[in-house]
C-alpha cells in the first residue's frame, strides 16, 4: 500500500492508498521506501519542538501536521503574513515543503492548511462560519468511510453538513462529526496538547490502580528520580529545581517543588528531598499518575560527592554542604537556614545579617577590635539600675526579676547611632555607652546607657542589657 508519494510520483499517477503492485505497474522504475510511521511520528514531534522558536505552544497534529498556537506571537514576527512567510522559509531551509494557515480554531487551521486554495492562508479573526462552506468534508478530521458516506449522501461540502439537521447526522454518523464541526467553528473549545520544550527533562508514571500511601509514593519517586537523573547525567546537567506533580483521580493536581543550592544529578539526594515533602501532599481519592519535571537545570561536573566518602576523613573548609543545605531548606524553610554576613555598622544588633544558605555569595570580612559578647539579645532589654554617678557604671541592676551586684566593670565604650538613618527611628539610638560588667558570681554582661550623660538629645539615660560574655 502506498502511504505517501512525492510530486514526481504523483505526476505519474501514483496516489496514496494505491496497492504497491499497481503503482509499480504504472511506474516500473518506482523508488520504494518502507514506511516507518513510528519514526515519522518522532520526527514530527521533533519538528514541533523546533517550531517553539515561533511560539511557546506547539503540538503535532495527526500524522502530517503541526499546530502552533500563535496567540499573541504574531507581532513578534512582524504580523501574521510575515510570520507564515518566515515559517515557510524555515521549513524550506530544512528541505521541507508545507502548507500553512492561520485561523481562529485549530480545526479551522487544520482544514485551511490542507484544503485551502493557497499554500499560505490567513483567516482574519472573527470570520463568518460560511467561510468554510466550500471545503470538502475531509477537512473535518473524520474517518475516511464517514467522509465517503457523506459524499454519497450528497453532503460533500462542509456547508451542506452545517445546514443539515443535527439530530439525524448524529444518529447516523456518531457524535464525532458534529464535534469536529463545532470545534472548527469555535463553538466547542479544543485544547491542543502542547509538546514541551525539548530541553526539559521529565519522567511520568501512570498507575493501573490509584495509589495514596507514602510508601507507594516513595517507590514511584525513586523510579522517576532514577530516570530523570540518568537523563540529566547524559546531558552533563544537574537539577536546580524540580516539580513533582501528582495527578489525582478527581482530575485535580497537587504539586511539590524542591530547589537545590547547586546543580544536582544524584538520585539519592534528589529522592530524599522529594520524599521528605510527601507528607504535604493530600492524595484525596488516590493518585493515578505522577510526573517529575526538571524545571531548572544547570551544567554540572560529572563527578559529584554522593556521600560515600562519609567517615573517610575527607573534610575541609571547601567541603560541600549543599546536600545538607537542600534538605534543611526544603524541610524547615529557606528563612531558617542561613549564614551570617557582616554589615558595615557599629550598632551591635545590626552588625550581622542572615543570608540564605542556598544562595552563593554569602560571607565577608569580619573583624572585631573590641570585646564583644557571644550572645546578644535580639533587642536590648531595659534594666533597673542603682547608679550613684552619671559617669559610673551601676552598682547593681535588675534584669528579668533577678538582681545582680556589679563587682567589676569596664567602660564606657561609646557607640554612635547610624547617622545616615533618621534619628527618629525607634531602634536608632543617638549615643550608647556600653559597659562590660561582672557580677559577684563572675558572670559578665554587656550593659549600655542611652545617651552621653550630658546632652538631652543624645538619649534619655535609660539603662539596657544587651549581651552576655
Amino acid at each position, binding site marked *: 500500500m502506498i502511504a505517501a508519494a512525492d510530486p514526481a510520483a504523483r505526476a505519474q499517477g501514483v496516489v496514496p492508498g494505491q496497492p504497491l503492485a499497481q503503482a509499480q505497474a504504472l511506474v516500473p522504475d518506482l523508488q520504494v521506501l518502507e514506511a516507518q510511521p513510528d519514526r515519522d511520528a518522532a520526527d514530527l514531534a521533533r519538528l514541533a519542538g523546533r517550531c517553539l522558536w515561533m511560539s511557546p505552544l506547539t503540538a503535532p497534529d495527526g500524522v502530517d501536521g503541526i499546530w502552533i498556537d500563535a496567540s499573541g506571537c504574531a507581532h513578534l514576527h512582524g504580523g501574521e503574513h510575515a510570520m507564515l512567510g518566515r515559517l515557510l522559509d524555515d521549513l524550506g531551509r530544512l528541505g521541507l515543503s508545507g502548507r500553512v494557515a492561520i485561523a481562529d480554531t485549530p480545526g479551522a487551521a487544520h482544514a485551511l492548511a490542507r484544503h485551502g486554495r493557497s499554500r499560505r492562508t490567513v483567516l482574519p479573526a472573527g470570520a463568518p462560519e460560511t467561510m468554510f462552506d466550500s471545503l470538502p468534508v475531509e477537512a473535518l478530521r473524520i474517518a475516511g468511510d464517514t467522509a465517503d458516506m457523506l459524499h454519497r449522501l450528497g453532503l460533500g461540502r462542509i456547508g451542506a453538513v452545517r445546514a443539515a439537521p443535527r439530530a439525524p447526522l448524529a444518529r447516523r454518523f456518531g457524535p464525532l462529526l458534529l464535534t469536529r464541526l463545532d470545534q472548527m467553528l469555535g463553538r466547542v473549545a479544543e485544547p491542543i496538547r502542547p509538546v514541551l520544550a525539548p530541553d526539559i527533562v521529565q519522567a511520568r508514571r501512570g498507575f493501573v490502580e490509584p495509589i495514596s500511601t507514602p510508601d507507594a509514593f516513595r517507590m514511584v519517586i525513586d523510579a522517576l528520580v532514577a530516570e530523570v537523573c540518568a537523563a540529566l547525567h547524559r546531558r552533563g546537567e544537574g537539577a536546580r529545581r524540580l516539580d513533582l506533580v501528582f495527578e489525582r483521580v478527581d482530575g485535580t493536581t497537587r504539586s511539590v517543588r524542591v530547589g537545590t543550592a547547586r546543580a544536582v544529578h544524584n538520585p539519592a539526594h534528589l529522592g530524599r528531598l522529594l520524599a521528605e515533602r510527601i507528607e504535604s501532599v493530600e492524595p484525596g481519592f488516590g493518585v493515578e499518575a505522577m510526573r517529575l519535571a526538571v524545571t531548572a537545570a544547570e551544567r554540572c561536573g560529572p563527578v559529584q560527592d554522593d556521600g560515600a566518602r562519609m567517615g573517610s576523613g575527607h573534610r575541609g573548609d571547601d567541603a560541600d*554542604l549543599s546536600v545538607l543545605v537542600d534538605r534543611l531548606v526544603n524541610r524547615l524553610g529557606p528563612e531558617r537556614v542561613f549564614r551570617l554576613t557582616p554589615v558595615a555598622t557599629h550598632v551591635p544588633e545590626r552588625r550581622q545579617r542572615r543570608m540564605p544558605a542556598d544562595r552563593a555569595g554569602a560571607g565577608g570580612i569580619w573583624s572585631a577590635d573590641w570585646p564583644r559578647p557571644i550572645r546578644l539579645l535580639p533587642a536590648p532589654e531595659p534594666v533597673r539600675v542603682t547608679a550613684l554617678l552619671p559617669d559610673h557604671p551601676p552598682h547593681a541592676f535588675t534584669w528579668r526579676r533577678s538582681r545582680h551586684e556589679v*563587682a567589676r*566593670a569596664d567602660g564606657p565604650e561609646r557607640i554612635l547611632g547610624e547617622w545616615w538613618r533618621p534619628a527618629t527611628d525607634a531602634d536608632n539610638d543617638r549615643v550608647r555607652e556600653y559597659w562590660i560588667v561582672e557580677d559577684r558570681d563572675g558572670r559578665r554582661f554587656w550593659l549600655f546607657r542611652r545617651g552621653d550623660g550630658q546632652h538631652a538629645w543624645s538619649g534619655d539615660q535609660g539603662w539596657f542589657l544587651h549581651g552576655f560574655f
Partner: protein
Amino acid sequence: MTRTDRTDMLARLRGQIARMERHTSRLAPDAGWDAGPIPWGLAVPEIDRHLQGGLPRGAAHEVIGQGGDMALAVLPARFVAHVLGVGGGPVVWIGAGLFDLHADGLVRAGVDPGRLLCVTAGRDDVLAVCEDSVRACGVAAVVAELEGALSLTASRRLQLAAEGSGATCFLIRRSRRPNDRTLFQPTASATRWRIAALPSPAPIAGSPGMRGVGAARWSMDLLRYRGGRPGSWIVEVGDAPDRLVMAAVPAGRAAAATACPVAGPAACHAVA
C-alpha cells in the same frame, strides 16, 4: 588452659568488642584510619593531656552551664566557640527557636562566622536536624542547643551517628529552671562538661573599686568522660582579638585538686 592462653583469649575478645563498638562504617581501615582521627584539642596543654590529646572526634559532647547560666548557656556557647576556634572545618549551629549568637563575639573567640551554617529549628526538631547534620557529608562539627531533658535513646542515636560519620557533635544543654537536675541524667555522650563563671581576679593587683575587668575565670568540670577519669580545672580566659587562649591556673579552690599538674601563676598572667 594455661594462664597465657587465657590472657590471649581475653585480649582477642576485647579486640572483637572494640571492633564491634567502633562500627563497620569506618571505611578503609588500611588508610591509616584504624588509629582513629586526631582528637579535637582544646589548646590547653593540661586538659589535653588529661583527655589524651583532646576531645574525641566522632562523638557527642555535652556542655552545661551553671545556676542562672543554665537558661542562657552563655559560657557553654563561649566554650564551644573556643573549641571550634582550635579546630577547623564547616560547622552547623542549630539554635532552638531563637538564634542569639553574636558574630563579633564568635570572631573574638577565634571562630570565623563564615564557617557557620546556622539553623533555627523548632524545639522538637532540634534533635532530628542535629542528627541529619551529623550524618551529612563534609561537616566537621555540629552544635545543637537543646532545651530540657535528653533521653538515653536520643543521645545514643546521636552518638552512633557521630561515630558513623566522624563529625563531632556538641550539645549545649539549656533549661529554663536554674540548676535543673534533669540535665545531669545519664546519657550516651562521650563527655559532659560544666562551665561555670568564677569571680575574676583584679586586673591590676590591688586596684581599687570596680575599675576594669580582667581575664574571665571559669571553672571547667569534666563531669563525665567515657573511658577516662573526670576532672576539674580552673582556667582564665584571655581576650585576644584573634584566638582565645585558656590557661590553667592554680586554684585556691578545692575543686582544682585533680591529677593534672597545674601551671604556675606566671602562665596565667602571661595570657591575659
